[in-house]
């Protein structure tokens, strides 16, 4: 944490998360999905764009087990994964 002793220097103000905090997964219900996601990351050199499907699966698991508030996945930025293939080509054409 920055010691904001010097007046005028830019300091960091933490912001609360938009949807609050994740409840802890005490029973490891979604551990399998997490392992799939981590394996995908390791295989793809930690490139997030390649592993979005696995992250979507993990969040869906959380929602199914009441570890996350249920929300349409498009609100979580997975709109491109939800659209059927004909629409996805339109999504790719966007800059």
């Amino acid at each position, binding site marked *: 944490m920055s010691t904001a002793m010097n007046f005028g220097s830019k300091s960091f103000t*933490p912001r609360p998360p*938009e949807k609050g*905090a994740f409840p802890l997964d*005490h029973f490891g219900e979604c551990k399998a999905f*997490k392992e799939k996601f981590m394996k995908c990351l390791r295989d793809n050199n930690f490139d997030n*764009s390649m592993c979005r499907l696995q992250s979507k699966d993990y969040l869906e698991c959380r929602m199914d087990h009441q570890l996350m508030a249920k929300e349409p996945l498009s609100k979580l*930025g997975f709109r491109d994964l939800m659209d059927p293939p004909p629409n996805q080509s339109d999504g790719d054409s966007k800059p």
Partner: protein
Amino acid sequence: MLLPLLLRQAAACRAAPKMLLHHPAEHHFLRRRLPPRLHAQSRNRKSKSGQQQQDEWRTRNKTALTYIAAAGVGMIGLSYAAVPLYRLYCQASGLGGTAVAGHDVDQVETMTPVKERIIKVTFNADRHASMQWNFKPQQTEIFVVPGETALAFYRAKNPTDKPIIGISTYNVVPFEAGQYFNKIQCFCFEEQRLNPHEEVDMPVFFYIDPEFDEDPRMARVDTITLSYTFFEAKEGQKLPLPGYSYN
């Protein structure tokens, strides 16, 4: 200026001879009165112009005073109005670390990823010296692009025999990039309880604002470091949280 006076005097003199015939003494009086008359008239003119001047000064002073008073009232009003105006300006420009306005949930839905700009996000885990959890990130780095949501994991283990409640906060370096780093959901700012010998995965779901790519100050920023620090929370202790209300 004196010409009309002289003319008037001449006319009076012309008229005077009639009187002279009748009253030579009066002519004498007339003559004698000339200088005093001149004086009297000039004095009258001077006093008239003097009064005019005084009146002019008075009105000028009044208008000047009104203008000054209006300016003073305007300054006071401006100083009162400056408070909300400055707040608006700070929100719009993001100076001083204030939360940039316009961060709403709909942005996540509508934003498009900027695929050309790849940013490396490195993860760091810290804990307070007296905190006995083992806390570490499960990946050292992840490559994301602005506008794309990303998931990352930390792992925490309680090796002791008693339950420990932890609470965490985070930090983003470089500081200026912090305003573009948005967390949708994480595990910070809330008490997390770990039972003895329990190990959990803690996810962080975040994205980098697409406007990051358009900020000239961020043109050379390729690495962002996200650092979490865990502290131990005592039972019943309520920490002041940054704008985050406890339920």
